Structures are given as structure tokens and as C-alpha cells.
């Protein structure tokens, strides 16, 4: 058993994550079969999952850069709102592609403001972030009123386009329509195999190019932060700034770069929200606090890009499922999934001799299971709060295993004072 585990651990990260993904799909399929629903692994759900995960993922990657340089960026929400507005404005004025870059720039501007306040002037990072979160929606409201004559919305905007993956999801290559392999497999209706095909096809058909960019940013950010000199120095700024300084690293410059990149990524998240992928226009309040969720995804993901992706997908899944689940059967089946997950946490805690944790998680697992048994459907508030309860529970059980950058939140002054 141990030998097998060791061999598994020595596999490349990408392979390991694919195994995890398949195990997750297996769990979903099992729950779906027991839970009397057909939604958990369907293509519309995976499509919704991806849509709603994108802004959280981008805000999360933004939070990653700032945190890794030692600057807490609670202003992600405000920077995302700037991205929403400038992205919509740019798309209306100059077309969707240039609009995207203007949106990124708008978010970056918010990042610059945060860097100026926290790095140059040494303002408390939470305070500056809160101020930006108040300033950004006020500013975009004013601009909307002056530019579009309505404080809350813009005209409809165009997106940068969609894409079907060739062969797998029937995308066309130079006008030639390739076969839709996943659809064929999904139609066989084989247990698990067809479920995986259908779920995967939802991610690959009608996929926004923005989604491709966002997902491609995950390995890119990992490479930039852990495989380049720039990334190493950026992380030094967040771990041991004095040590970096003694090696001649300009800590201020790296913090500035990190926080501006952070704002730019959150801005791209805002562009996604305003794009036809989600809203199709600038709409006040449509950020819906997803900058904050991105912040939570950073902690959930233990300050790692893949972990952040996982957290964002989990949020997107729960949120999207609720939207598509009009009869409530999927939300009900999700209770069973909660019970299984909590039972897993309980077992994990007990093997690590954390008996109290194990008992607590176990009790909640039993509670969720009994609830699932005796009820026909779940009340509306339950699916409303589930994404946030999951974040809280993850923190409750795993907060002590997380490792944040050592110098996070500290105000750094050159010369040690």
C-alpha cells in the first residue's frame, strides 16, 4: 500500500490532478445514481461551473500575486469593479479585444493606487483595501451616469468570441466540421464513462476565449512565480523582505509590480463579468462580492495556483448548480455529497489523531446524511449559503495546515524601520 502511494506521489503533478479529477467525477456519478437526479454530471452544469468560476479564479490569482509579495489585497473587489466598467467602456468604444486590455488596465490602476498607499505611504493594507472597495463602485457609478446616462448600467457589449474544441466537441477547423466524439460517448449512456464525456463536453463547447485565457493563466502564473527570477524575488518580498534587501533586491519595485499585476488580474475578472460570458454589459452590483470569494479561494488553495483553480471550480459548481436546479433535486443530492465529504474529513482527522475534529466532522456528516434521508428537498436558504459555508468549513478544519507567506500584511520600510 505504502509503495503504491509513493509511486503515485512521484507522478507528475498534472497526472496526479487528472486522477483526482476522475475520482471526483466517480464520486459525483455515484451520488447522482443514489440521489435520483441527472444533473450533477450534465454538460449544462459543467458549463455553469466554468462560467461562475472564472471571475473567482482571476481574482484569486490576483490575490495570489499580492499575497506572495506580502501585501494583503482586500481591494480585489473594487479592482474587479474597475475592470467591469473599463472593460465595458473599452468594448463599446474600441471593440472587445482592446476593451479587454482597457479593463485589465482599469484593474491595474486600482492596484497602482493600493501599491501607492500601502508600499510608498505605509498605510495599513486592510484599510487601503477597504477604501478602494468604497471608492471603486462610487467612481464607476459616477462615470456610468456621465458616460451612459444611467448610473447602474451600460448598453450591451460584444464578447471576444467562443470556441468549440475540434474532434472532442465538434469544433470546426477552417470550415470543416470535425466529429463530436464526446457527444457520441455521452449518448452511449454508459455509467460513469458517458457521465465524464458529457461533463467534459460542457467545458469544451461554446467556451469563451476569455475562459481559455483564464485557465491558461493558471500554469503561467505558477511558472512565473516559481520558475523565474522575477517570481523568486517577488516571493522573497513576501517571505523575508530584509533578506531580499541585503541581496540587493529592490523590494518596493517587486511589491509594486505584484500589486499592479494583482489589480490587472482582478480587472480581467471584471472583464469576464461584463462580457457576454456572464452579463453582456456593465451592471452595477454584478461583481457580487466575487473579489472577496477570490480572496477566500487563495486561502483555500493554500497560496498555490492549482489550489485556487480548485477552489474557484468548487464555488462555481455549487453556485451554478443552484441556478440550474429549478426542481431542487440536485441540491438535495448535494446533501449526500456533503455527508460523504464530511465523513472523509472525519476519517482523515482521526488517522491524524485529531479526535475532537474527527468527532465534530463525523457528527456533521451524520447530520447531513439524516437530513438527506428524511427530506425530499432542501430549503432555498441552504443552497444560497452553501458556497460560503464550504469556505468556512474548509478553514475550520484545515486552517492550521495552511501556510501563508511569512511577511504577509506587514508594512515594510527600507532600511529595517
Amino acid at each position, binding site marked *: 500500500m505504502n509503495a503504491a502511494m509513493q509511486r503515485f506521489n512521484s507522478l507528475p503533478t498534472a497526472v496526479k490532478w487528472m486522477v483526482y479529477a476522475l475520482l471526483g467525477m466517480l464520486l459525483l456519478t455515484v451520488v447522482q445514481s443514489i440521489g435520483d437526479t441527472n444533473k450533477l454530471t450534465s454538460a449544462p452544469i459543467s458549463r455553469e461551473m466554468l462560467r461562475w468560476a472564472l471571475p473567482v479564479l482571476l481574482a484569486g490569482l490576483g490575490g495570489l500575486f499580492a499575497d506572495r509579495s506580502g501585501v494583503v489585497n*482586500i481591494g480585489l473587489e473594487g479592482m474587479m469593479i474597475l475592470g467591469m466598467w473599463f472593460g465595458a467602456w473599452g468594448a463599446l468604444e474600441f471593440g472587445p479585444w482592446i476593451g479587454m486590455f482597457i479593463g485589465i488596465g482599469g484593474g491595474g490602476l486600482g492596484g497602482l493606487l493600493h501599491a501607492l498607499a500601502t508600499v510608498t*505611504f505605509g*498605510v495599513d493594507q*486592510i484599510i487601503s483595501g477597504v477604501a478602494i472597495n*468604497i471608492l471603486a463602485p462610487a467612481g464607476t457609478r459616477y462615470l456610468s451616469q456621465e458616460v451612459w446616462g444611467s448610473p447602474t448600467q451600460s448598453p450591451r457589449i460584444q464578447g471576444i468570441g467562443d470556441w468549440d474544441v475540434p474532434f472532442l466537441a465538434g469544433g470546426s477547423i477552417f470550415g470543416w466540421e470535425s466529429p463530436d466524439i464526446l457527444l457520441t460517448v455521452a449518448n452511449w449512456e454508459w455509467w460513469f464513462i458517458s457521465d465524464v464525456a458529457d461533463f467534459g463536453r460542457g467545458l469544451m463547447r461554446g467556451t469563451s476565449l476569455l475562459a481559455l485565457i483564464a485557465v491558461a493563466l493558471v500554469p503561467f502564473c505558477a511558472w512565473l512565480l516559481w520558475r523565474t527570477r522575477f517570481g523568486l524575488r517577488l516571493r522573497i518580498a513576501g517571505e523575508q523582505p530584509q533578506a531580499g534587501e541585503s541581496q540587493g533586491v529592490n523590494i518596493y519595485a517587486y511589491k509594486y509590480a505584484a500589486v499592479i499585476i494583482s489589480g490587472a488580474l482582478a480587472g480581467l475578472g471584471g472583464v469576464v463579468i461584463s462580457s457576454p460570458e456572464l452579463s453582456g454589459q456593465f451592471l452595477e452590483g454584478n461583481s457580487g462580492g466575487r473579489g472577496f470569494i477570490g480572496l477566500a479561494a487563495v486561502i483555500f488553495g493554500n497560496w498555490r495556483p492549482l489550489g485556487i483553480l480548485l477552489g474557484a471550480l468548487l464555488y462555481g459548481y455549487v453556485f451554478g448548480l443552484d441556478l440550474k436546479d429549478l426542481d431542487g433535486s440536485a441540491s438535495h443530492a448535494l446533501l449526500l455529497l456533503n455527508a460523504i465529504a464530511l465523513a472523509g474529513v472525519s476519517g482523515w482527522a482521526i488517522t491524524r489523531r485529531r479526535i475532537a475534529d474527527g468527532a465534530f466532522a463525523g457528527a456533521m456528516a451524520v447530520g447531513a446524511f439524516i437530513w438527506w434521508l428524511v427530506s425530499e428537498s432542501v430549503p432555498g436558504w441552504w443552497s444560497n*449559503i452553501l458556497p460560503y459555508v464550504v469556505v*468556512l468549513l474548509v478553514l475550520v478544519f484545515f486552517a492550521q495546515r495552511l501556510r501563508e507567506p511569512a511577511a504577509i500584511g506587514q508594512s515594510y520600510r527600507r532600511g529595517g524601520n
Partner: protein
Amino acid sequence: MMRKVAATLAAPVGALVLTLIISSLALWVFGSNPFAAYGDMIAHAAKLETQVDIWNRATPLYLSAIAASIGFRMNLFNIGVEGQYLIAALVAAQVGGLVSLPQVLHIAVVFLVAMAVGGAWAGLAGLLNVTRGVNVVISTIMLNFIAVSGFMAWWVQAWQADLREGETLSSTNLGTTPIEDSGVLPDITSWVEVFTGDIRENNPVSGMLVVALLVGIGYFVLLNRTTFGFDLRSSGMNPFAARAGGVPPKRMIIIAMVLSGAIAGLIGLVEVFEISKFRPNQIQGLGFGGIAVALLGRNSPLGMAFAALLFAFLDISSGILQQTETASQEIVKIMQGIVLLAAVVAYEIARRFRERDEARATAEALTEGVAA
């Protein structure tokens, strides 16, 4: 002494001037006359009924600021005032509407329920922090979502679903069961009229103003005249020293969070008492507004009072700008945001100047001592 007063005032005055410059630019760029807009705002604020509106808005903002600042004083960022006050007001209004009691008791029940719910909601974040090490910023943000987009949104949906089966929408059935008069804190219009002359009848001065003043005084006494206040401040300034001095850090966190949430529970009562119920379009954003007021007022009871009045003045001014159309009313929110950001930067710069002065004074005193 004069120098010290000047140094204290330099930062907020500088921030205010910077705000005026930037918002004037913003107005001018889009073709509005900033001076006409400011003139309208000031002329409007000179009227008695506007001043009543300003006090009625400053009251919840001040309470919200005190709630936030209790946490800030010990570096505990309670971002969740928003959720705490909304859920507290919802539950308190519902309970107040369901029970029927003699006057003083009925009002007391509404107050106690609001403070207990607010305190419990915030206390949960404190509990998660001391038992599991969960970051307070994240947990209070999540609890905000659970309260506002979870429970409150669900309550509004459920209430609308009830309504569809027969009833028609009107101002009488909007929101929770109305609280009987015995449970509503009376307004203090007649007290104020002694000093001001007649206030129009549909514009009462909220009785919560008195509560807010009492809370402000209580906060000042607690902070500066009690051991608990000393422990609170020392935990914020240097947690390690406080711990070495015998202040139990975990207990302080729980107490501070519960106290903060209990005060937050009072915020929504201003509106609940005004209309005798909680309605779906209850004013939101007072929690985040209060955080801004606390930061602007530097967590001091007096400073926060001025900051609350400033924010209330700006909030209320949006109405007159909409009427006269000298400028778009959204400018007031920009002014709030800029004054906040400018103030926190100005405070930080002032602090550095002060530290440098102190360091120089110490150095001079030392050299003089050596020379003598």
C-alpha cells in the same frame, strides 16, 4: 500645545482640501460647475429639515463606526458589521412584531434581541478565530454573505412568494409584521424643537440619536477609564506585551467581537423604529460606511462623530443635486471614497513626521545631557 493641535488637524484638513480639488476636477471634466454644486449642497444643508435628515443618517453611521472601531482598536478587522446589523434588525423587528408587551419592556426586548443576534453573529467569527485560527477578515466576509445573500435574500423571496397567493403589494404589507407602538422607541422631535423651532411633522428626529450619543460616551469611558479599555488598546498596540502583562488574548478577541456585533445590532434599529418594521429594501451599506467613518475618525469617539456627520451630509446632499441638476448626484460617493483614502494616507504621513520629530527631540535631549 498650539503646535500639537495644528499637527492633529493638518492631516484631516489636508485630506479635505485634496478631496475638494479632485472632485472639482471630476465635476469640471464632465461639464458641471463645481462651485454651483457645492453652493447647492451648502444652501440645502442650511435648512432645518435637511439637518434633521443629516442627524438621522449620522446616527446609524456613528453606531456602525463604533462597532467597527472596537475591533480595529485591537487590530481585529470586523468587516462583517454589514451582515451583523442587517440580520440583527431583521430578527429584532420580527420578534418585536410578534410579541405584545408593556411599553418599556417591549422596547427593551427589541433592543436585547438586536444586540444578542448581532453579538452572536460577530462572536461566531471570534470563536472560529480563537479555536481554529480562522482569519477574522475572511470569516466575517463569509458571514456577511451568509447573512445577506443567504438568509436575507431567502426571506425576501419567501415573503414575495407568500404575497403572490392573493395579497397585493402595498406599503402596509411590506416587510415584517409591524411592531406595536409600545415597542417603538419614541422620536425626540419635541425635545429638539425646544431649541430649533417647529420641525415639519413628517420629519421626526430619531430617538436612536440619544442611544448613539450614550453609546459614544460609554465607548469613551470604556476605552479611557476602565481596565478593560486599557487591555483592549494594549492588545491592539502590542499583543505580546499585553499577553506578558496578563491579558488573556483569546478572551479579549471573543469579548471584542461580541461587543462589536452587539453595537452593530443597534444600527438597523434606526430604520426599524422609523417605520415600525423591517422591509426588504432596508438601507444597506451602513456597515461598510461605518468602517469608512471609523477610519476617517481614527477610532476616536469624537473624531468618528465628526466623520459621521460629514458622511451623512454628503449622503443627504445627493438628493438636492438630483433636484437642481447642477451635478450628477453620484459625486458625493466619490467624495466619500476620496476623503477616506486621502485621510488614511495623510494620517500615515503625519505619523511619520511625528516620529521623526520625536526621534530628533530625543537625540537633542541626549546630546544636551552628554554636554552637560
